[in-house]
């Protein structure tokens, strides 16, 4: 942790306007990422995790307003021109999208799509690009890589397509990988293979990873640090072990307890009452207050900010859950 962070996100806010009203999709998200570190963003659908990722790479500014600061190795990305950004995208920061089925171009062969990236971001010659493409496919575990370069995406299965996406993303050896639910559309057995692959490559290339997911199990197995998001805000963040084992925010605790693990079978599961709020009508105070059992009068009117509660650990709650000994240690 003594490393200098390569990515610093500070007070990131993204707003979309829909029919005259402003939708606060992301509010005051801040985190820092060091080399080789894996940061998780978890939350339910609509909590703003994907928008956060897109805002980092300057993709969200085409259809929304992005404020705050994203510093990549000292450079400010939010104010950078499209032209400058293009030099960073793909070369230094790469992104994997959620759906391997739709994010590859169905009309181009896999080889063309792989070498295209290399052509744009490296000075390799035609031959070298082809060799590098084969090497990358090999690296992500696609058997008979050389013969599959000429095949089209529809000839690959879901897991294989996601591997191709990873190969394309990593072809130019980026220093940061943004992964937006890379395994959500895949089966558990394939999910395990893909996550392993991302971790192994991140380790080998000492690459930072921001992983967006809604699966707490995936977070537990892959991330070093995690931010839990609810209605566009980070409600809790810190070391993955601390956050998952001794959650301090009632929402994190609710999420953890609604997963049926270590509960007697066929008994009532713990469930967070109510549903996540719509961005059109966010409550005035804490967004979680209507569903929270610990909520007091202050929660209805004022919004808690993210406070340090332990070294490297923050939570946004007026009534955080008690810490245990482990937490203090």
């Amino acid at each position: 942790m003594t490393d200098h962070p390569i990515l610093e996100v500070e007070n990131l806010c993204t707003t979309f306007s829909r029919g005259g009203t402003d939708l606060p999709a992301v509010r005051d998200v801040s985190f820092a990422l060091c080399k080789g570190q894996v940061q998780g963003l978890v939350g339910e659908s609509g909590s703003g995790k994907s928008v956060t990722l897109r805002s980092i790479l300057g993709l969200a500014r085409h259809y929304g307003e992005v404020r705050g600061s994203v510093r990549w190795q000292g450079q400010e990305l939010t104010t950078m021109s499209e032209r400058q950004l293009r030099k960073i995208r793909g070369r230094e920061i790469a992104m994997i999208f959620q759906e391997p089925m739709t994010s590859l171009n169905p009309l181009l062969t896999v080889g063309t799509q792989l070498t295209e990236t290399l052509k744009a971001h490296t000075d390799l010659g035609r031959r070298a690009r082809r060799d590098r493409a084969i090497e990358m496919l090999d690296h992500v575990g696609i058997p008979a890589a050389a013969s599959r370069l000429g095949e089209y995406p529809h000839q690959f299965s879901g897991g294989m397509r996601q591997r191709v996406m990873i190969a394309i993303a990593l072809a130019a050896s980026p220093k940061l990988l943004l992964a937006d639910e890379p395994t959500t559309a895949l089966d558990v057995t394939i999910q395990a293979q893909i996550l392993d692959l991302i971790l192994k490559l991140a380790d080998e290339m000492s690459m930072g990873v921001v992983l967006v997911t809604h699966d707490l199990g995936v977070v537990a197995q892959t991330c070093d640090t995690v931010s839990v998001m609810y209605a566009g805000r980070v409600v809790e963040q810190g070391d993955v072990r601390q956050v998952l084992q001794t959650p301090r925010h009632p929402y994190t605790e609710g999420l953890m307890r609604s997963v049926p693990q270590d509960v007697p079978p066929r008994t009532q599961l713990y469930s967070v009452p109510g549903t996540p709020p719509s961005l059109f009508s966010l409550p005035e105070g804490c967004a979680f207050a209507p569903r929270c059992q610990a909520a007091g009068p202050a929660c209805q009117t004022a919004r808690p900010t993210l406070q340090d509660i332990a070294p490297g650990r923050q939570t946004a709650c007026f009534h955080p859950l008690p810490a245990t000994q482990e937490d203090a240690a």
Partner: protein
Amino acid sequence: MTQTVMKIDDLHLSFPVSRSLLDVVQRRPGKSVNALNGVSLELQQGETLGVVGESGCGKSTLARCIVRLYEPTSGQIHFDEQNIFGAAARKDRSYNRRVQMMFQDPYSSLNPRMTTGDILAEALRVHQMRPEAEIAPRVAELLDLVRLPQDAAEKLPHEFSGGQRQRIAIARALAVEPEVLIADELVSALDVSVQAQVVNLLLELQQRLHLTILFVAHDLRLVRHVSNRVAVIYLGRIVEIGDSETLFSAPSHPYSQALLSAAPSLDPDDKGAAIQLEGELPSPLNVPPGCPFHVRCRHVTAQCRTVIPALRALEGRGEVACHHAEEINQHA
């Protein structure tokens, strides 16, 4: 004493794939997708049977066969001593009422132009569950049952969240007082915190109304939580079936073992314990000969490549379809 309500016997289903021009020219026979390759199981009165497997393994096809959305190529399903695909059963629509299905996608399984009240009333009218005058009170009762507010009857599906829509789907299924519910990935599209609410509702209603449930899902933790017994399906075959707790705590088939260990644990300290499966599910267009799992199995022998293992009871465990189940589980 437990009573068998439904008996599925050696169910096969293959979908023909249209022959390509090349196939016609070369006089090759048309291919077919073998979705189910001999599934046999029994549903006991009042139990929840979980069905798990990877996508494309045939679990949804099985669910759809049971509600007669697909006609099997061969094999039979007996419900109440009657073959449901027989001519007599075809005429009798009571089966459609007694076995109800709930679908995965809460956004496309409800008619967007009908109010919740209409959706529920339609089910009551079609099966003549209530005289016209009693329909409105029964709709109110159903909404109450799934804990939706009374004004929900006037609303259209798009006004509800995913969790509420699945409650409507449950209410619609329960409207006709079924005995068996088929839940095909009922909560898979929902967020975790909402998932728990719907699962709780389902468990509670099952006890109250003595329902038998076939619970198809890919979320293993959830299946473990709701099921009494679990069947693991691989390429249209049951590879292991047994008591839920036994199967999850000590799976016997190498595929079940790999599948269960692939589910990521919530404990960050519990890393890297997973058994890695190589490769992916083979295409059901050409199912491998012998044991369908042999191409990915760590314990494969010559016998596995040629002989299809039958489902057999293993001492202290459920039924397993593996030639080497004893040796594999010796050390376990």
